[in-house]
């Protein structure tokens, strides 16, 4: 700031304002929920529907093959899936704001630029917390039970939310880069093979060796496998390095993704000025 500016911009004031702005943007997102409750409730139920479908379709076959309950196997995977689906919500919201000129409105206001993204981040994490609560409740109704200590269960949920935090930044980046809703739709389709090519729903041991290596390296597999372990639910013994180090990867993968996509998102946001 030059000496000519009249404002008192102490760092503490700026931080306080950034937090206030973040809350304002968060509140805006929560108001969106109220303005179209149908969409948001469907988004919360969608992972449950998908999960229910898999239990119905595959539960018998896989359960019979392993001798253990498919529900206990699949639920931690379904939690990871619910977190992963957050990608679409973030991406669509960011892209819509940018294409409709809302982002420009925010950028023309004397608000904190950090808050635009931080508010989105807070709202999406709250959204995913609800989503997770819904899937967990549904899981409990289906008969899923964790068999572990409270700290281990807490650690499992922490890993799931960490995955959500990582895909959030992928969503912000793609949402800012996508020039059209069509591009967003393309990514929405690409989400499915990523989901299936993992250990979320199925035992990777049944896959051809090369495919299995890819599936086990999938960040979704790492989180699902690590969560199964922490919840004390049955998993499958992996044989690749990735499967053996699932817990490490469930931490490392999201951190790596954040390290890549957070700076990319920030740079893209700044590049809106180009």
């Amino acid at each position, binding site marked *: 700031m030059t000496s000519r500016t009249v404002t008192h911009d102490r760092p503490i004031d700026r931080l306080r304002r950034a937090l206030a*702005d973040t809350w*304002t943007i968060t509140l805006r997102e929560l108001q969106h929920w109220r*303005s179209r409750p149908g969409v948001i409730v469907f988004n919360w139920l969608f992972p449950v529907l998908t999960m229910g479908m898999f239990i119905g379709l595959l539960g018998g076959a896989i359960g019979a093959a392993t001798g253990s309950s498919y529900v206990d196997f699949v639920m931690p995977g379904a939690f990871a899936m619910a977190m992963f689906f957050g990608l679409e919500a973030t991406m669509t919201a960011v892209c819509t704001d940018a294409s*409709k000129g*809302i982002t*420009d409105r925010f950028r*023309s*206001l*004397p608000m904190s630029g950090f808050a635009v993204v931080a508010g989105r981040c807070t709202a999406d994490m709250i959204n995913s917390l609800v989503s997770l609560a819904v899937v967990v409740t549904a899981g409990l109704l289906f008969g899923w039970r964790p068999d572990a200590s409270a700290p281990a269960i807490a650690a499992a949920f922490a890993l799931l939310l960490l995955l959500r935090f990582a895909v959030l930044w992928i969503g912000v980046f793609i949402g800012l880069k996508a020039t059209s809703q069509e591009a967003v739709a393309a990514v929405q389709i690409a989400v499915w093979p990523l989901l299936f090519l993992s250990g979320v729903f199925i035992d990777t041991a049944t896959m051809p060796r090369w495919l299995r290596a890819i599936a086990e390296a999938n960040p979704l597999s790492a989180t699902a496998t690590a969560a199964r372990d922490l919840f004390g639910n049955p998993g499958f013994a992996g044989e690749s390095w990735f499967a053996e180090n699932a817990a490490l990867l469930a931490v490392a993968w999201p951190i790596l993704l954040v390290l890549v996509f957070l700076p990319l998102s920030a740079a893209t946001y700044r590049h809106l000025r180009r």
Partner: protein
Amino acid sequence: MRGREPDSAIEARGVRKKYPSAAPEERSALDGFDLTVARGSVHGLLGPNGAGKTTAVRIMATLLDLDAGEARVAGYDVAREGRQVRRRIGLVGQYAAVDEELSGLQNLVMFGRLSRLSPRAARHRAEELLEQFGLAETGPKRISAYSGGMRRRLDLAAGLVVAPQILFVDEPTTGLDPAGRRDVWDAIRILVDGGTTVLLTTQYLEEADRFADRISMLAHGRVVADGTPAELKARVGSDWLEVLPRAEADIPRITKAVRRWASGDIRTVNGRVRVPVLDRTTSLLGAAAALQDAGIALDDLTVRTPTLDEVFIQLTGAAATDDTTPADDTQKVPA
């Protein structure tokens, strides 16, 4: 917190902006753009699509970086003191949207909060604006349910949350009926009376003519003319005699026949001979007689008072080519 008190609300010098990824003919959006807007005035920035209006406003609103040159808004450099600029400007129209999924009230409260009003002050200001724009009843409804006129008024309100020193307004009255237009302009007038400077971009030259104190005409990324509406019109001659011959081959003969009534250069635009004249009736009668004597067949002969459209055609035509018959694409003036 009024900041520095500059003589001009907006001061742009030699601003250049290129879009490297655009098509070759659109790559250079601003090419030596100069603009001075006096404080407390309504200034019209006019030009056809692609002339650089949007780019210019986006740069002044700190939404876009400039490549070269300097622009100061409210005395602050847009490149280095963006935050100070943002505290003093408001955007209305296409430059910044409102959130369609929220109510008008929620939007205004949110913008107030983000403009550093306290929760209570933001709420109070939002209600005040809704009242002022006749939206008190629709305020709590979602904007996606608003009519076109209500939507325009809310757009305007959104730009006024903090009573900006400088308001960038784009097409404020598109799609409004005459009463709606009057309401919007009344609101803008009240602001200007309160000391706000308004930079207006519009396709309605008539509206600019009526409401703008000064006008800058933009073509190919630079200002080609600048002045009050009256000055600009005077630049192209007070009145025109417009002669449309049946055969274009007659144009040299027409030019010769009417030369004695011309008060300036005779130009040919789109097959029409335009003769600037000082006295409407005398020259019309005289020219009519002279053309009849010369036996030239005409399709039309009229006297016209220049509008900003014509100023524009002449100026941008001249800016595009040095030819007296400008190419067709330079004729396209916003409707």
